[in-house]
């Protein structure tokens, strides 16, 4: 090797290493300052508080869910703090933006775990976030508690991972069974091209075919699209007995329902969750009249009603009552665990596995050995005269 090459190589290598070291020092200094001398007042103020991390999308397409998660979590934490906190210590929520993707979620998790030293992370929201955080939180024995992720992959992602949202495996087969029981043989599925909805679609299709039905149309639309007319036309052309409307969120579901009816498709349609959002009903109006959907069962309990009232008063119309309820419950479940175990996560983990009949605002439930909810927590509802009624 000649001298010139050597010089070049070491120049580049040396510079990169040098810059890295300098940057490390600077960041360390800043971090040190901020934690000990208090660049950010909050750190000092709540020195004795119990920190809870929250990872949820605060920007991007899914931000409206993230905001709902944050609001609902804050309501619960404020309630607990105003009643004196947990064992005399206040709860401090540190929300981080996971942007519904793996990279930002891992950055957020690394920050929460290593800088804020949280032992409990609420989140992620999108399954993609949760799946990306799991390999980081699990080895450090951090509790990861999702209230919104439904991917079946999360069930076996780790021992310290819990959720109080139904998995797609829980409810998509129920949907297929329900439709079969109602005597529907030919179904049209319209799905939004997102991780959640596509996961549901795959499970649903398998189950429905197993039960002897046929899929006459299987349409997909991309996230954020607002024009479904040709997909609907293909649905119409398949001449189904029933339509399974399978969107990611309330707004696209409502738009889809609206366009279905606008185009004169009067086939009954079934769906899940999104119709619990008042926004969906407001948007779609008469288009969702008579629609049947699977939803979380008991948000009409007193506690649930009160929560939704409070949420409406303080934060506005919720995107989904289900999300609000699950998030609210999540904080209280953690509160119970903290009261018993303080911040010993192994104790918390074991405690959470023992929970069997927790009475939350979304119902009474516990956790299975894989950290999922043990109760399939759903009931059929129908929109009648613009409000939903429970069918049993």
């Amino acid at each position, binding site marked *: 090797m000649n001298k010139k090459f050597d010089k070049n190589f070491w120049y580049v290598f040396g510079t990169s290493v040098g*810059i890295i070291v300098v940057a490390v020092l600077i*960041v360390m200094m800043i971090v040190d300052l901020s934690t000990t001398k208090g660049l950010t007042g909050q750190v000092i103020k709540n020195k004795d508080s119990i920190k809870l991390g929250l990872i949820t999308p605060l920007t991007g397409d899914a931000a409206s869910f993230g905001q709902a998660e944050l609001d609902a979590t804050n309501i619960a934490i404020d309630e607990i703090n105003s009643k004196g906190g947990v064992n005399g210590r206040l709860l401090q929520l540190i929300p981080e933006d996971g942007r519904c993707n793996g990279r930002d979620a891992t950055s957020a998790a690394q920050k929460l775990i290593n800088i804020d030293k949280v032992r409990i992370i609420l989140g992620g929201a999108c399954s993609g976030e949760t*799946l990306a955080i799991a390999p980081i939180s699990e080895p450090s024995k951090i509790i990861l508690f999702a209230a919104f992720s439904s991917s079946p992959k999360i069930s076996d992602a780790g021992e310290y991972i819990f959720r109080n949202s139904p998995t797609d495996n829980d409810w998509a087969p129920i949907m297929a069974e329900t439709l079969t029981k109602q005597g529907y043989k030919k179904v049209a599925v319209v799905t939004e091209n997102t991780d959640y909805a596509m996961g549901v679609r795959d499970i649903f299709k398998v189950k429905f075919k197993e039960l002897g039905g046929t899929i006459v149309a299987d349409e997909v639309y991309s996230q954020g699209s607002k024009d479904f007319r040709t997909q609907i036309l293909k649905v119409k052309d398949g001449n189904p007995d029933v339509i399974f409307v399978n969107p990611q969120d309330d707004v696209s579901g409502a738009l889809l329902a609206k366009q279905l009816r606008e185009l004169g498709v009067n086939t009954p349609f079934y769906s899940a969750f999104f119709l619990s959002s008042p926004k969906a009903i407001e948007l779609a109006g008469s288009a969702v009249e008579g629609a049947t959907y699977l939803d979380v069962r008991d948000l009409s309990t007193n506690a649930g009603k009160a929560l939704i009232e409070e949420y409406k008063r303080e934060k506005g119309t919720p995107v989904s009552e289900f999300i609000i309820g699950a998030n609210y419950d999540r904080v209280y479940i953690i509160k119970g665990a903290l009261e018993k175990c303080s911040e010993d996560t192994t104790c918390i983990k074991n405690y959470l596995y023992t929970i069997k009949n927790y009475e939350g605002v979304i119902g009474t439930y516990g956790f299975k050995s894989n950290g999922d909810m043990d109760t399939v927590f759903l009931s059929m509802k129908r929109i009648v005269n613009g409000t939903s009624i429970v069918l049993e």
Partner: protein
Amino acid sequence: MIEAYLIHLLILVGIYSVLAVSLNLALGNTGLMNMGHIAFFGIGAYTSVIFTKDLGVPFFAAFLIAGLLTSVFGFILVYATRKLRGDYLALATLGFSFVIYSLMLNWSSVTRGPLGIPGISKPCFFGLCIANNLQYLIFVLIISAISIAIMYIIVNSSFGKLLAATRDDDIGLRALGKNTFMLKSKALMISAFFAGIAGSLFAHYITYIDPSSFMLSEVILIFTIVIVGGIASIKGSIVSTFLIILIPELLRFLNIPSSVLGPARQIIYALILLVIVLWRPKGLFGKIDLE
């Protein structure tokens, strides 16, 4: 424990600096306005994951295959767009990244579509596996240092001077008997190769990939890195990667309401980009004006 967080950030910086320097090789040193660079990153990530996970290829082989396959896509892109120039080239490459994005999203049998691919293994070499982030950081630093050194040598070689010449005057260089199309192809293939291996590093670090990591907003992120650092400046790209990755992380420590935090971060990117474009077209370390 601060170290662990810093290690995480440094791993990201290492990966993105390879991505930025490789973009700069095409954009700055060769003058190829490639807005499809993020697609190369994505192709590399998916290739590496599919080869290790579905086909059981050892990591290092998959890592190289990721680079090579991406490089083939680089050639396809440069061949397809060989007659375009200026903003039409920029648009066509942007169109290319959209096409690749739809492919990742819709070719579900291979990419699992929007569900993404979870549970990606950490790299192993002959039975020795990377067990923690510190080791991964060392691995990333070695790979980045080698990659950047190679690109540095290329840029400063007589070949690199030809690339600079084709950026400045393509016809003039052809009149000197140089096949500028081949030069551009090679430049973009090298650029794509390193973007591809950066993608592989990214996928095996995050352990979960889905198409959303390779979208339009990410194109703008790496463009910002290169432009802030300075056209045709490797040093600039590296420093700028630090700034652009770390500044938003520092924001996490300020008491900004979280509903504002996310947009604020994007606004900072956009403002930095506009300020540089408007008032300092050379970027921080560049010698060449953006034109």
